[in-house]
């Protein structure tokens, strides 16, 4: 039952991300994305390969339905999918064994969760900003875009995590 709820909220949030991509234009230096946390919150039983496939499909869907470029979000999200399991075991490894449940913000605490979200957002925006710029930005303009987008998206992702698995 809980799984069904998760997947429905997951689908709704994907639609929300598509709407954000289409209608939210903050600045050329600010991109808001909740996709890293959607990947982070996926069931822990999924291995690396399913994680990457889901990440690719999710990125492709967002690209397809938004005004962005096809492949851009998918290219940025696949590394997030690959890094998710390693990151989760590195940060929460000791606590995962006895718990045998899913990731929730309240169980694992805000600091570790924030760190995990920050790392995944950084991976996502690193690839996203570089691929989107296509060599047309200077280093500092790209770095500014990366920092603002990561700083903006990380707290939003923390809020989304609570919505995905409220517990």
């Amino acid at each position: 039952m809980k799984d069904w709820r998760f997947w429905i909220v997951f689908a709704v949030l994907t639609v929300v991300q598509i709407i954000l991509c289409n209608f939210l234009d903050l600045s050329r230096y600010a991109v808001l994305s909740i996709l890293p946390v959607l990947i982070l919150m996926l069931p822990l039983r999924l291995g690396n390969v399913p994680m990457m496939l889901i990440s690719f499909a999710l990125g492709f869907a967002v690209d397809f339905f938004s005004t962005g470029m096809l492949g851009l979000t998918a290219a940025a999200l696949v590394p997030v999918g690959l890094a998710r399991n390693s990151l989760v075991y590195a940060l929460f490894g000791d606590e995962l064994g006895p718990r045998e449940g899913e990731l929730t913000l309240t169980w694992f605490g805000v600091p570790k969760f924030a760190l995990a979200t920050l790392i995944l957002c950084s991976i996502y925006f690193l690839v996203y900003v570089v691929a989107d710029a296509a060599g047309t930005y200077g280093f500092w303009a790209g770095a500014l875009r990366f920092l603002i987008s990561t700083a903006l998206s990380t707290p939003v992702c923390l809020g989304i995590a609570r919505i995905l698995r409220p517990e």
Partner: protein
Amino acid sequence: MPKGRTVWTGIATAAIFILLEIAALSMLHSSSALQNIWLNRFSHNVMALTWGGVEKVKNYFGLREQNDILAGRNYELFKELQHYKELERTLTAMAKLDSANLPPRFNYIPAEITAMGTNSRHNYIIIDKGSNDGIVPGSAIITPNSVVGMVYAVDKRYSYGLSLMNERVNVSARIGREGIVVPMRWDGGGTNKVVLGDIPLHLDIPAGDTVWTSGKSKVFPPDIPLGVTEGLRVIDGAVGIVDVKLFVDLTSTRYVIVAENPDRETIENLSR
């Protein structure tokens, strides 16, 4: 999980990751012109790096062969360099010749002094050009600002000449551009000192006048600057001579020009 299986899982994960990234980038490549150019450029850089690396490895293993080729080339360049050095010497001599504004009625051949006697009153010069190079006896040996001597005898490759520091050599000289013409000779006073003889006593020859070749000679070209006067001396109350300090110390001369007057025989025949 067994270790072997873990390795294969890792490889499969990496392969799928690469495939998915390639798929995403391919889509990006075809969906945007900007990204298309960027990815093409990236691809070209990777190709250049890869092929450059392969080429470096090939070059490394081909070093022995390259060394052999370089050694051969080195030898060829050495020979070529010697040839150009020789040419440069000739050109330097010819350039000095041009700057001297020498008249065209003489033929000029650059040469290098290979030996020079300086210890007697009958000194000699040997130069590295001979009859094969067109040198004939009786030619002048000069530099753009001095007279060095005259050719006395020639071999095929070398010539023997009498130095200006030889009492048998007389040069017709002019004091100033329009002054009197008098004979100039070496009196054993030094390697950069000569004297002008037969100076009429009523003439005042100030010190510092430039002395030139007069041109009244079938051997020496005219208007070669030789030196400056140092004042008139009277010998035995009857003969005046003027000391001249040469512009060039004869013993330090290395490159010379042999000036040959092709009309010399004609002039000699006329003056008999």
